[in-house]
């Protein structure tokens, strides 16, 4: 292993780890804010209990999301210093904006929300959680705009004197069509995750409550699970639509990524869509296409069933060699092919939960089937895996580039991963890789334990009706 391999593994592991927690925060913050809004408007105790219950889970998750995010801000400089020097003029701008616009907002107002239950007027306190919800989504936008520049550089020109791109148009950078497609897709994924989280937990509690014969809390869990199921349905539709737009953009902007996602080795007019392939994939020679469907690929690429000319991995490799000189321009075909399929396949469990749940709770019914409780629990991890698979596909499909050349832009704005990495000895990077991996593994176990413990405890906390001692803080760490 070279320090390049270790640095790539490290960035992969730390980013994937960060993105386990990020979507839940992005999706859950607005939903908790909605629960609290419902409580403020209706005064119904049920909404208060849901706000507190899911609020606690949000906070446990937020802590580890912050902790794992800190590393990312430094990792570009630590492990990818050549990249940072090359791209800082452009890439630094959205990062700095993310800090000053979004991170300050979410961290400050989260503190106000946690500790402000009896310090702030009800409406102001409600405003603080909405600020948090806005902050977490705004930060996602800035970081996705930064990432989209790496996928599809716009808003910059190449400065031959400095030998690197310089920013010329921040508006173009922030309205990069790649970013405008990726951001709603990621947000839809986040709501899909949070919706499944809520529907899964509430569905399990609903069955448990129904079987125990206690009717008191049935309404609470029924409401929560149905809200979660509707969120799954709506965000699921958004996922498909935004995913389609993003796919069509990728066929144009990063054809190699889509060709490898489909294991399309040799292109041509209207190539078949691959449903299943076997083989090691990595050199196109050992890929065997087992099931193929005609027409689908053309539709995915350009929205029509025939008359679409697509390049395959082998054709594109030849083309890039002519354009950029000798080299291997192919991503890892096995990873891109399967991560693309895992991403889409994982959505099925949430969809099943949503459909089954909406049917079983129709017309005031409360399900007590054990299998539904199991389905609820089983669906919870699925969107997390789907999110990870989607990012693995996006990022590993970009290889070997760290800044992929824009086919309609200045071809000099491009950088390959081996030219981006810092010149550290391999052992130095191994030390940090091992440290982060072990630390993160321990924290993940603690996170899962805490979440489980609090889910099992349930939504017990009720509003304070009797006049409490005003000397006591409403919340203290």
């Amino acid at each position, binding site marked *: 292993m070279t320090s390049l391999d270790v640095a790539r593994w490290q960035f992969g592991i730390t980013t994937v780890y960060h993105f386990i927690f990020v979507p839940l925060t992005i999706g859950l913050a607005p939903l908790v804010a909605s629960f609290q809004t419902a409580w403020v408007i209706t005064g119904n105790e049920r909404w208060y209990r849901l706000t507190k219950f899911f609020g606690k889970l949000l906070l446990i998750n937020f802590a580890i999301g912050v902790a794992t995010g800190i590393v990312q801000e430094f990792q570009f400089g630590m492990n990818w210093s050549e990249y940072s020097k090359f791209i800082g003029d452009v890439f630094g701008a959205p990062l*700095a904006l993310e*800090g000053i616009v979004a991170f300050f907002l979410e961290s400050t107002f989260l503190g106000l929300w946690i500790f402000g239950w009896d310090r702030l007027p009800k409406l102001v306190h409600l405003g603080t959680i909405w600020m948090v919800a806005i902050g977490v989504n705004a930060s996602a936008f800035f970081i996705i705009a930064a990432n989209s520049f790496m996928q599809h550089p716009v808003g910059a020109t190449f400065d031959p004197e400095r030998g690197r791109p*310089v920013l*010329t148009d921040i508006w173009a950078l922030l309205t990069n069509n790649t970013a405008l497609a990726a951001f709603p897709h990621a947000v839809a994924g986040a709501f899909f995750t949070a919706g499944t989280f809520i529907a899964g937990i509430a569905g399990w509690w609903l069955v448990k409550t129904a079987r125990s014969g206690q009717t008191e809390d049935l309404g609470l869990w029924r409401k929560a699970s149905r809200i979660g199921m509707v969120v799954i349905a709506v965000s699921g539709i958004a996922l498909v639509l935004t995913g389609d737009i993003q796919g069509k953009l990728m066929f144009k902007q990063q054809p190699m990524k889509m060709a490898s996602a489909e294991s399309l080795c040799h292109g041509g007019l209207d190539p078949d869509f691959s449903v299943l392939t076997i083989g090691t994939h990595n050199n196109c020679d050992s890929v065997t296409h087992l099931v193929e469907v005609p027409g689908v690929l053309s539709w995915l690429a350009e929205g029509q069933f025939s008359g679409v000319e697509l390049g395959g991995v082998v054709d594109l490799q030849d083309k890039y060699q002519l354009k950029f000189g000798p080299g291997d321009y192919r991503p890892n075909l096995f990873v891109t092919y399967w991560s693309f399929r895992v991403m889409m396949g994982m959505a099925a469990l949430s969809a099943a939960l949503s459909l089954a749940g909406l049917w079983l709770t129709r017309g005031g019914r409360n399900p007590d089937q054990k299998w539904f409780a199991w389905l609820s629990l089983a669906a919870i991890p699925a969107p997390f895996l789907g999110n990870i698979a989607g990012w693995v596909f996006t990022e590993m499909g970009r290889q070997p580039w760290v800044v992929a050349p824009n086919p309609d832009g200045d071809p000099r704005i491009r950088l390959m991963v081996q030219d981006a990495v810092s010149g550290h000895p391999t052992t*130095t990077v191994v030390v940090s890789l091992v440290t982060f991996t072990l*630390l993160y593994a321990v924290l993940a176990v603690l996170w899962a334990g*805490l979440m489980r413990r609090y889910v099992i405890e349930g939504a017990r*906390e009720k509003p304070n009706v009797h006049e409490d001692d005003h000397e006591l803080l409403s*919340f203290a760490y």
Partner: protein
Amino acid sequence: MTLPELWFIAVAVLFTGYFVLEGFDFGVGMLFPVLGRTDNRRRVLLNTIGPVWDGNEVWLITAVGAMFAAFPAWYATMFSGFYLLMLLILVSLIVRVVSIEWRGKINDPAWRRLCDAGIMTGSFVPSFLWGVIFSNIVAGLAIDKTGYVTSGFSDLFNAYAVLGGLTTLALFLLHGTVFVALKSAGDVSIDARLLVRRFGVLPVAFVAAFSVWTQIEFGKSWTLIVAGGVVGALLAAWVLAAIERDGWAFAFTTLSVAGLGVLLFGSLFPNVLPSTIDPEFTLTIANAASSHYTLKIVGWLALIFGPIVLLYQGWTYWVFRKRIAVEHIPPSIGLSLRR
């Protein structure tokens, strides 16, 4: 004044703001073994910074983001150059974040001890290492012509840098103790004042020695006033805390921490990373800066959003201005380890 120079000041302000705000957060964490002899007293300590510590930490993230945007070469060389120190700082910060947030979630002495250890480690290590890092930046690093830092791990712990590390450690401890005296009531506050009265001379001595060394070896004529102010303010804080003027004492430790930031960045100016190999390889404000457009556009956006951030952060401090005592701490709502 040129645009890159303005940005140098902006980065300096952000880092200095981070040291002022996280300085007392770290101080509070370091005080756990001394002032937090019972769980409730620890909770008093922790809750003096409870609603604000996360927002304080964002000053660092934003400082680093601003550095990346305005001086990419500085960002890249600094963080690849201080690789292992940064790794230690990051691990400490990670452990500290989760320890603070998760501490109260479980009612179990072993769990609390574990989290307390995390909070203390996460406060001690960065307090020391930030001093080491910024001393090395001022003193210069072995930067070769490709912009790589060739200083070894042991080179970073030279006498000046170790003194710098001990100085920030001692300064943050005093800053934090004065903060606790101001923000708590009852026994905790009394003990904090006693602590300042008895041991306050130590940080003053460290800060004096470090400021004199910095001024003589790296200072400019105008930083002489700053260096004097840093020491004078801390001395004043020590006296003020002793006569129970908590608010004024805190104002003066704040002034001292901010002054130390000005002294360090002022001594560095107009370089951002001096090379000890050859002055030719030194990274300066001019040669490390981004393009004019980037500095201008991000500058305007920072000018718009910066004051808004200051407003709502200031408001947060106002909302939670009340002193906290042991009797204000509610019973723990944490769950037992097992059902």
